[in-house]
């Protein structure tokens, strides 16, 4: 598979299926692993990083999970391709920095990605649509078992899997769920909820993970603690909280529909109209309006739009996607015009000049 092939189909994790696929966008499970006997990536010299990359590349490529996989070395592909992988959540922001020796494997349907020489030698992640932590974990476990048979991971009996950052040591596992919580935000409960979550050993982040803001009412909740708990307990703890959040969002939606229906419909239809007709739109406004439209679709106020189309818009309105799809480099003003065209196109609105 090549990078350009990614553009031909939407990511599997954005298909809008799976349990609670309305409120929960996706579930992600990640393991951090290092190879015994090699210096950690950030402290290693180029020669060591190359050696780790070659060793991991050989072993991962031969795994059954990686048939027809995409393999890319970050210092060999173009900046726009690097950005494209980031926009599809297949690599982290950190993976763009200091690219020497860094590489990534992406499985055929973009369910699995393995980053080589990120903060740790290996960052193995599985993405699933909807609330699907357990199935993501099953895939991840099987893949890890496969790799473990061929690679010696750094492990201590007391501290578990050893990672470059002490915040990941132990299980090396991060489970996260991406949510869309517009009604909770509208009813002004979000602050209390976020505070409560942080007391449970969980963290909340924005759409693109660590260090990003929550835009368009999208939040990512993940476990913070990795040492002293079993993987299954960490997952079920997160899942319990996730289910409470879903219930809270559902109740808030019911409240809005029962008590503020006109105001709610007004905001949703205005958002829909703007997206269908705008000729210049920046990404921030797009995400905010998409959030409202999504709420409209999920509450059956809007009936002629599919969640999967909204998910598609999310991804293709980003700069690298726009540039790749139109095969042209845009200034940020041109980008806002192209973005508006693409959205009109997907939503079947005013398609003049598309």
């Amino acid at each position, binding site marked *: 598979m090549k990078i350009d092939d990614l553009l031909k189909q939407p990511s599997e994790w954005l298909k809008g299926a799976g349990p609670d696929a309305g409120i929960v966008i996706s579930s992600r499970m990640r393991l951090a692993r290092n190879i015994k006997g090699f210096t950690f990536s950030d402290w290693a010299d180029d020669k060591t990083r190359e050696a780790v990359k070659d060793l991991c590349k050989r072993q991962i490529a031969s795994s059954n999970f990686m048939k027809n996989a995409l393999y890319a070395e970050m210092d060999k592909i173009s900046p726009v391709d690097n950005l494209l992988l980031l926009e599809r959540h297949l690599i982290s922001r950190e993976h763009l920095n200091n690219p020497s020796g860094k590489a990534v494997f992406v499985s055929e349907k973009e369910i699995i990605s393995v980053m080589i020489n990120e903060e740790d030698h290996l960052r193995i992640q599985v993405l699933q649509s909807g609330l699907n932590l357990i199935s993501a974990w099953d895939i991840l476990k099987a893949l890890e078992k496969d790799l473990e048979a061929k690679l010696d991971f750094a492990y201590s009996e007391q*501290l*578990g899997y050893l990672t470059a950052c002490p915040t990941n040591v*132990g299980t090396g596992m991060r489970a996260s769920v991406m949510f869309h919580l517009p009604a909770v935000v509208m009813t002004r409960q979000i602050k209390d909820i976020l505070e409560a979550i942080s007391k449970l050993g969980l*963290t909340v982040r924005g759409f693109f993970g*660590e260090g990003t803001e929550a835009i368009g009412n999208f939040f990512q909740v993940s476990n913070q603690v990795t040492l002293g708990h079993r993987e299954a307990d960490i997952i079920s703890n997160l899942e319990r909280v996730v289910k409470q959040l879903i219930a809270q969002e559902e109740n808030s939606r019911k409240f809005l529909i029962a008590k503020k229906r006109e105001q709610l419909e007004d905001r949703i239809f205005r958002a829909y109209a703007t997206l269908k007709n705008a000729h210049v739109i920046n990404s921030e406004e797009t995400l905010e309006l998409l959030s409202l439209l999504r709420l409209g679709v999920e509450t059956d106020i809007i009936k002629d739009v599919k969640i999967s189309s909204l998910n598609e818009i999310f991804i293709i309105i980003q700069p690298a996607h726009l540039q790749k799809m139109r095969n042209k480099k845009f200034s940020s003003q041109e980008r806002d015009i192209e973005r508006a065209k693409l959205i009109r196109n997907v939503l079947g609105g005013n398609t003049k000049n598309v």
Partner: protein
Amino acid sequence: MLCDICHKNEAMIHITEIVNDEARELHVCQQCADAESMHMNQGFGIADLVSGMVGFPGEAREAKEKDLKCPTCGMAYSDFRKLGRLGCSECYEAFKSVLIPLLKNIHGSIHHTGKEPEKMVASFEKEYTGKKINVVTKEVKIAELREKLQRAVQTEQYEEAAVLRDRIKELEKNKI
């Protein structure tokens, strides 16, 4: 209040994070916050601040630990403070005296209870013909769970405590 990173400027940014009901605070000045963000080329996450937390708040202890160096990868303790990341797996041993309290602070525990490499399990079983090692690890596990249970009760996390109690019961029942 002085910045926890440079110890020179007045701290302007205050971060409180709560893990297992224990509050942990970090105070940094604007310059250090900026420098750290620039260095990481991304947001100012708590993980990036781990370096700043080591040795905090006791400066006296730090003097002794400044000389620590990992014999395997050559990382000095001061490098770890600057980078916030360890150099290699042996650093965990080399910096044990600072890392253990740090881990306790971050995770509320210093014992891994999750899955272990299968190779390791297999070789243990071969060596000890299964049973013996099972008994030992099980007892260690039960002791660990008891410790956690106690902590959960103390901090009034009764839901957690009930889960722990059930797991201890289950383990004891299956004792060989």
